[in-house]
């Protein structure tokens, strides 16, 4: 059932050791074309599952498929531990709860939009949005709204894109076009390097922590684990820019003003300056002008 729902082929039938490549190599290098095609379709299924969880509020069929005993068993085997809020809630109520949780987490003010531009630049519709759009276009994809209109660099769309490439690659292999499959392999690696790999690991940790519903908590865990696996399997080394960005401690800042001083539209008088205890790292502009480097600039 899980295989049907997630379009995952039985990867255990592939002889051990043939589908796992070393660093810098992918499964396609070592496995037969048929085995690689099967591997790619299996991976595409996981991408589609994760895309379905994050691209918009889950629909009834998606949840029905996920909650079937066989699928749950397989997800449990993969380490996913859903709570009763997912397992034992009546269907319609669950759908309502997930829609509310989705909105709170991903689609309203104060949440965590699953959008690469927001995660990496703090704003919607920045460079990642245009870069992903261009990539989709270059490879012949057009982004159309689903139930809602979403950004090109939305998590669900980025995952869906890789799923599409994997399925194309699998098809190419099945049709004997290994060169096309290799080209797609490079595209997938590039896309991970430039997009998914830069933000989904940190983002998944955030959602795992912030989700109130076990469905999103577990899906976030799944996303994080899968991303780590994929990056390793693809032989990539990518810095996780989301969550990896350091906050500069105040003590390291050398500023021309006192950051603790009230910003109040008035000039600080000498008399007032003595009432404020300036931190050691603070240098006032006049003092800095007395320093050698700035003194030359006067």
């Amino acid at each position: 059932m899980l295989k049907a729902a997630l379009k995952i082929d039985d990867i255990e039938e592939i002889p051990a050791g043939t589908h796992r490549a070393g660093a810098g190599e992918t499964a396609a290098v070592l496995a037969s074309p048929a085995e690689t095609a099967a591997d790619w379709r299996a991976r595409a299924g996981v991408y589609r599952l994760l895309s379905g969880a994050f691209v918009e509020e889950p629909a009834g069929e998606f949840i029905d498929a996920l909650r079937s005993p066989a699928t749950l068993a397989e997800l449990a085997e993969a380490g996913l531990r859903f709570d009763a809020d997912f397992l034992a809630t009546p269907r319609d109520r669950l759908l309502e709860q997930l829609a509310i949780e989705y909105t709170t987490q991903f689609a309203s003010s104060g949440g965590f939009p699953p959008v690469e531009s927001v995660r990496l630049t703090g704003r919607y519709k920045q460079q990642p949005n245009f870069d992903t759009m261009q990539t989709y276009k270059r490879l012949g994809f057009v982004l159309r709204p689903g139930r809602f209109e979403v950004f090109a660099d939305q998590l669900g769309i980025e995952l869906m894109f890789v799923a599409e490439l994997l399925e194309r690659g699998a098809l190419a292999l099945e049709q004997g076009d290994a060169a096309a499959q290799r080209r797609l392999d490079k595209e997938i690696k590039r896309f991970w390097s430039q997009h998914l790999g830069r933000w989904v690991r940190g983002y998944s940790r955030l959602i795992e922590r912030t989700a109130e519903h076990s469905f999103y908590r577990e899906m976030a865990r799944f996303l994080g684990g899968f991303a780590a696996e994929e990056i390793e399997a693809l032989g990539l080394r990518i810095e996780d820019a989301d969550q990896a960005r350091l906050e500069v401690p105040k003590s390291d800042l050398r500023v021309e003003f006192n950051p603790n001083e009230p910003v109040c539209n008035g000039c600080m008088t000498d008399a007032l300056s003595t009432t404020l205890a300036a931190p050691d790292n603070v240098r006032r502009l006049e003092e800095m002008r007395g320093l050698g480097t700035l003194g030359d600039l006067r």
Partner: protein
Amino acid sequence: MEMPKVTRRTFLKVSATTGAAAAAAPRLLNAMEQQLGGKDFGPVTGAERKAIPINCHVCNIQDGAIAYVENDRVVKLEGNPEHVSTRGRLCAKGNAGMWYSYDPDRILYPLKRVGARGEGKWKRITWDEALTELAGKLDAALKEDPNTIMMKYGRNRSGGVIDRFMQTLGSATVVNHTSVCESSKKIGMEPTWGPDIETPDFANAKYVLNFGSNILEAAYFHNPLSQRVTEGRVDNNMKIVTFDVRLSNTAGFSDEWIPVHPATDGAVALAMGHVILREDLQDSDFIETWTNVTVKELKEHYKQFTPEWASKISGVPVETIERIAREFATAKPATLFTYRGPAKHMYGSYNERSCMMLPIMTGNVEKKGGYCLPRGMGWPQPSPAPGKPKKDSYLSHPPDYPLAGHKVSHLVPFWIADGKQKINVYISYQDNPVYTNPGSQAVWGKLFKDEKLIPYYVSMSPFMGEETALADLILPDCPYLERWEPESMPNSLWPWLGIRQPVHKSLGESRENRIMMRDIIWKLDPTGSRGMKQFWAFKDGEDYMRQHFDNVPGLKEAGGLDFLKKHGVWPIYGKLDPKTGKVTDKTGREIKAEYNMYKKELSDADMAGAAVGKDGVISKNGKAIGVKRNGKNYVGFPTGNRIINVRVDKWAEYGFNPMPTFKRIPWHETMKEDELILVTFKLNVMKQSRTAAVKWLAEIAHSNPMWIGTSTAARMGIKTGDLVRVESRAGHLVTKAYVTEGIHPRTVAIPTGFGHWEYGRLATLKLKEKKSDASHGADDPDLNNVWWDDKGVHPNNIIPVVADPIGGSQGWFDTVVKVTKAGPDDKYGDSQGDWQKHYDAYKETMRYAYTGDLHRKMHPEMASWAGPDSVKHKEGGGH
């Protein structure tokens, strides 16, 4: 060949002696910032960016701007050099406007409340679901009474769409925000000379009196007028005298800052008028010809307003009042500007009139360098248009305030609570009274949380403001860079028409106001059988603009909307000279403004069929079109009798003094030694409520300590940075003190725009409050760059309502407070207001209305007035 030996010394010597030759050498490469503007290039590709002209709408000055777009993304905003008013300059707020579009807290989809009001639980729904639900609520309300559908708007620049929407529904319950803005300034001016604002010709003035305006930083029309103030100061050696309780940046730029006791500007202005008339410095010819009083009457009336009287009230020395009065009257041309200082008091309308009398009595009206009428342009509305609703609304036209033509919106919660009018559906558009109004959370927060008083609340907003957080349904509006809107603003002496046009596709599923309202109407009347759909027959925003602009005479010939899409503004008066910053004609001279607008003579065609009355008023088809003076037919002033009304007879009907006068705030007269007056102000990077989420602006200003005078603070043992408790009759707050000489000793001042509890992660700094917690973007990596952790304290919770019984204005600067050092239980950011205490303040302020028991006590000079029953006022249409 031997090369010359060049040391640094010889190099400098050569440079010093060859300056002329160097200057004459061709210069083909110029620094970009010295160029005119209007073009921009990507730093990586060097390719020219797409430039789309718009009118800025971060605040409401309507500066001409250009959005530079790369890849459907705004990368830069700057001034439009073709815009006659702002001449290529844009302020700090305008430069940061793209943050609205890309704010990570922006609402991109319709949201339906699923928890308790204000709990923060939402469900995203489709537009169709949202419109269906709303149409159901509207339908039910329409069946009961259209007036139970209420619209309250804040910054409405839709160009008539909101009125069209409400008129289509047949509801008269449309309430604006003007009473917390500037309504008493407007009501002071309109019956006097017609328009609601002045255009001082600063650039050509010799002398400026500034009463309570911070024009170089915040007031109407900051950018265009501050340019002219600077020109007048630098090019024309203009003198500026500023009366203000606070040393604002404008006061600091002035030749003299004269701190006045709050709410006494009007007394100072009247005393200056007294001096001018006493010393015969008035322009008698102008008064006799163009006003409805004689010089003799005026002199008689002003005798009571002696400098000694005003000095005692205001604290301004007698000799200062006399000296400035003489300087103003004799330095021609001279002008005057006012803003909130005089107007935001219980009798702000009186204060405004007292101030504007100074340029009137000295004949500086409509002179070059003087006090000019505003210049604007209109545009036609699409046809057909719905008619006015059949029944009036109490909340729109409260019968206790018949002269408050700009409404009294800040009293609306109390009137709803008192059952004056039933509301079934409350719609807000760009209006955040829960933050911006007196009483803020304690009053409007309580109103919106009460589902009996407001059964259904719809907010049209791109952001989760304090009001939107309490809504039942949120419809995602577009920020200004994604909207079509017509514009014209009298922000210089040259009238213009302009547009806002979308510079990129709207994000998510947000819809601009006219599309959103059209879709609501279409949902209510899909077939047109209810007669509503006919008023909303347009394809999109651009189509709507064509119906506005394609038939405006002059613009039509220039290309109509297509011209505006290309240039952003019409007409283009000349070319901006980058060296002088002025708009010049073909000969290189600055273009001239027109003056003496009231002295335009009516044409023969105008006079055909017109009749001249005994008083000289020229009427045609029942409407005054001009006035006959000295044998000539002039267009006059846009008042009912085409002259300036120093005496406003209409006011006397309601027991108000029809002549320029002054009333002290009664509770200011009885202030104790330890009591102070709390005022508020705006910084240059903040507007009412919508800038705290703009990162570039929030980084510049994010905390708002309370200004307190040095001697006052010393008496209380307060130093800069100390926590202080500020207590009014309606509540208390705890904030930090900023001790300064730059404020009147009986005043404390808190800037607004800070201390949000909603409006997204940056405004609330919830990321700092709950680090690693599951809320409000605590882990947003970009917000790690937010180095500040003080969001400020909002004062409005403790400011009680006060309503000008004439103009309806909130008395923002009338609040008496006690300030003490914070106690052990006080903590920074505490803010507590109390509904009942605010309600008591509302009841008290109603006593000053013309129907109230204190009205007559405040107007002993109107003893012969026959009382409220003598006036046949129109009753508002309550439910």
